[in-house]
């Protein structure tokens, strides 16, 4: 007699009354096997009739499981198929995908497959669903990111990405094992795949012992003799393929070859590539391989939140790397320095589309900035602000700043809009690239050009400042007839506000990646300027970071 309810299945699996259970199997079913049809029927029956008695992981995915199995008449994916061991294997190796093997109960999964008799269709049905439940959990983790941090820290997420369980099942059904599934189902984003390779490299380095910390000491310039040089050579040789076996390991002279290696290191770590070994360079050298791995893991997690179709022609802004890339058909056509929001004015992470450009823009000062930063200046010297092109707007009329008595104006009775007229001093510079969004964030030019020479560029109030805005304008307007560089310069010379709509909006993706790949596929690291890596790492562990 087949037990109708399987409430106790996992009680038995986990040992509750194991011996009794075995006796039962031996006594009742020995020699008989459930037919494929019996199994299919049992799977459908479980999903249709059982509710609270199914194991929690199955109940948590019940709708998705029901949708798939009922559509496929209960055809099993795991039972008596090699996918079964393959799933356990894949979960055990989840760290290859930047996931955590500890989040999946591989032990129980293995036991489950062995404990249920071939004859016990109902028990096998529960095992089948249990496997599918964890398959779905893994597939979701892989495709759209883990669920836990969303519950822990919802503020980490700006845009939701839906998970398509049906698609996961369909792809799995077409594959013989999880390897094929992972290749087809993982985020099909070049950067993600690249990071996965980098992760494997760094794991290899970790296995081989990582690297030793370099002692802090005096600044070392090219040509200096210093006791730390052998240690620095050793450290660089671990990650710099070009340096290996070309030099005596115990020389204390900071020679040209090592200077070049230090420059390469600095370039890949967001430092001034001056070849001088100072405090910051030693600090970056000493970040452990374990910490680098953690950085890669959280960055991969973030890529899972991104739409997979970034767009044939798109713009990618990496806030943590202060860099903009314009990519067409998988090829990077433009790399440009950008400046981003200060830690207290963090630029948000989201995806949108650039719809139009505005030349000679007004800068409409956001109220928060007007009250906090402009008002004290207006009280002190309205004439100076007027000379920089600022004016007040009351209703529909522009009013000169000097015509207003600022003495009695406070944050609470501040009823003006402040804006800055187009011109050489305008905070937005000569052009802005608009993708209207609730964050009021856009890309723009800036009169403060010198800031782009610095390696660390978190200066703005949240908007993205471009190092070469006119180049980007030219590239985006390319497809519009008549929009040459000359025409752009002509518009700028006229000095009047002009809006130009793009023929086809261009997707723009703001990301926060403290590790990303350069054109040669090498890992570039930058510091966690907004502390978001730390926060995500906490959330992945189920903890809310307090800041």
């Amino acid at each position, binding site marked *: 007699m087949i037990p109708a309810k399987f*409430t*106790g299945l996992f*009680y038995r699996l*986990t*040992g509750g009354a194991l011996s009794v259970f075995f006796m039962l199997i031996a006594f009742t079913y020995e020699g008989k096997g459930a037919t494929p049809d019996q199994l299919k029927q049992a799977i459908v029956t479980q999903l249709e009739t059982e509710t609270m008695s199914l194991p*929690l992981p199955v109940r948590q995915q019940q709708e998705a499981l029901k949708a798939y199995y009922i559509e496929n008449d209960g055809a099993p994916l795991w039972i008596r198929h090699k996918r079964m061991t393959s799933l356990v294997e894949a979960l055990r190796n989840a760290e290859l995908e930047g996931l955590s093997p500890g*989040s999946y109960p591989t032990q129980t999964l293995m036991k489950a497959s062995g404990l249920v008799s071939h004859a016990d269709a109902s028990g096998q049905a529960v095992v089948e669903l249990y496997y599918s439940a964890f398959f779905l959990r893994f597939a979701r983790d892989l495709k759209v990111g883990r669920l836990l941090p969303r519950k*822990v820290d919802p503020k980490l997420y700006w845009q939701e990405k839906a998970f398509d369980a049906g698609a996961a099942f369909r792809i799995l059904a077409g594959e013989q094992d999880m390897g094929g599934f992972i290749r087809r189902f993982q985020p099909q984003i070049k950067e993600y795949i690249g990071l996965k390779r980098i992760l494997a490299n760094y794991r290899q380095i970790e296995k081989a012992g990582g690297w030793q910390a370099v002692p802090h000491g005096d600044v070392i310039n090219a040509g200096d003799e210093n006791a730390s040089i052998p240690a620095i050579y050793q450290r660089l040789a671990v990650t710099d393929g070009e340096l290996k076996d070309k030099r005596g390991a115990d020389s204390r002279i900071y020679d040209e070859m090592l200077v070049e290696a230090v420059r390469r290191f600095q370039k890949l770590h967001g430092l001034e590539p001056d070849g001088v070994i100072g405090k910051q360079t030693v600090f970056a050298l000493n970040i452990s391989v374990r910490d680098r791995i953690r950085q890669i893991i959280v960055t991969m997690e973030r890529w899972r939140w991104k739409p997979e179709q970034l767009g044939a022609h798109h713009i990618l802004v990496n806030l943590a790397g202060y860099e903009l890339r314009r990519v067409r058909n998988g090829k990077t056509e433009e790399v440009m320095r950008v400046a981003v929001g200060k830690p207290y004015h963090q630029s948000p992470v989201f995806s949108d589309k650039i719809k139009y450009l505005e030349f000679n823009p007004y800068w409409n000062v956001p109220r928060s900035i007007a009250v906090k930063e402009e008002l004290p200046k207006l009280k002190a010297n309205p004439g100076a602000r007027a000379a920089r092109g600022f004016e007040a707007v009351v209703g529909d009329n522009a009013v000169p700043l000097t015509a207003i008595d600022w003495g009695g104006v406070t944050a609470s009775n501040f009823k003006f809009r402040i804006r800055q007229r187009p011109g050489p001093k305008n905070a937005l510079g000569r052009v802005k690239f608009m993708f209207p969004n609730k964050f009021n964030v856009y890309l723009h030019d800036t009169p403060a050009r010198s800031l782009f020479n610095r390696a660390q560029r978190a200066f703005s109030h949240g908007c993205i400042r471009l190092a070469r805005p006119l180049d980007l304008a030219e590239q985006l307007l390319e497809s519009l007839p008549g929009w040459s560089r000359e025409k752009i310069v002509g518009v700028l010379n006229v000095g009047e506000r002009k809006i130009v709509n793009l023929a086809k909006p261009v997707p723009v993706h703001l990301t926060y990646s403290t590790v990303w790949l350069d054109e040669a596929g090498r890992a570039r690291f930058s510091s966690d300027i907004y502390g978001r890596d730390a926060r995500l790492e906490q959330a992945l562990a*189920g903890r809310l970071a307090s800041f």
Partner: protein
Amino acid sequence: MLKLHFKFIAYLIVAAFSLLPGSSLMAGTLEDVRARDKLICGVSEGLTGFSEQTEGQGWSGFDVDYCRAVAAAVLGDADKVSYVPLSATARFEALKDKKIDILARNTSWTLKRDVAMKFTFVGTSYYDGQGFMTRRSYGISSALQLSRASICVLEGTTSELNAARYFESRSLSVQFLKFKERGAMVKAYNVEKCDALSADRSGLASDRVGLSQPDEHVLLPEVISKEPLGPVVRQEDLQWSDLTRWVLFLLINAEEWKWTQDAALEGRIPDSLSLSEDVTAALGLRSDWPINVIGAVGHYGEIFERNIGRDSPLELTRGVNALWSGGGILFAPPMR
């Protein structure tokens, strides 16, 4: 009107008792304990790791060791304790009625108990909080992954309310299965009547030991309420509450000084401990009380690990119950 009447009578009774010789205002618990040459300690009826009675070996546990420490301080012998097992409902009456000298039974320090019920909490010996236990096979690492779970709770406790509020505020739907008795609740969980258990985490760790396969169950990291557990004495006996409080502080300080049971048994005394005669006299104790206490039970860390920590089946980690200097919140004033 009727209520007032009762109150008045109650007041009269209390007033009358307080005039009798040997009443609370007169006698010190310390004198009683000395005269009897035995400490009477109220403990729980059996909570693995905290207080349990094993055949042939008598009482042992985290709470029991505190009783032993007090006996060592007062009587110079940790074995001079008689234990009175008490249920949750009987414990306060027993203390009030002087059936016990001290209550050392996983009792939460609350305003009502401290003030309205006229007890004094000696301090916090274990910072507990409500948590969750679930099956390892679910592959869950946080209570936030318990959506759709059925959760066993004790009826009428704050646990049920706390848990309901916790899940509601996080928009997770769960259902509760309520039980009147702890044993029945644990049994129901053991046979998969529910997916998870919710109660004080120390209690859950204790319950886990009794399940058919303890290793197949995990305590989730979330702590959703504050339950500071500690010994309780009667409010009016200031000398006794001071004494018992400083016994607890000694246990905590001894860990900070790394003053182990072995060191105490070898007669070594830490430099940080410098009590003058008049201070020990004011406590009503002999000057060798600290070495007697630590020699008998060891310092806080040793008591913890032995009964409920790594060296015990409960395997609780120190967590917030680590010393303040070790990242926890356990802090005792200096002994000087």
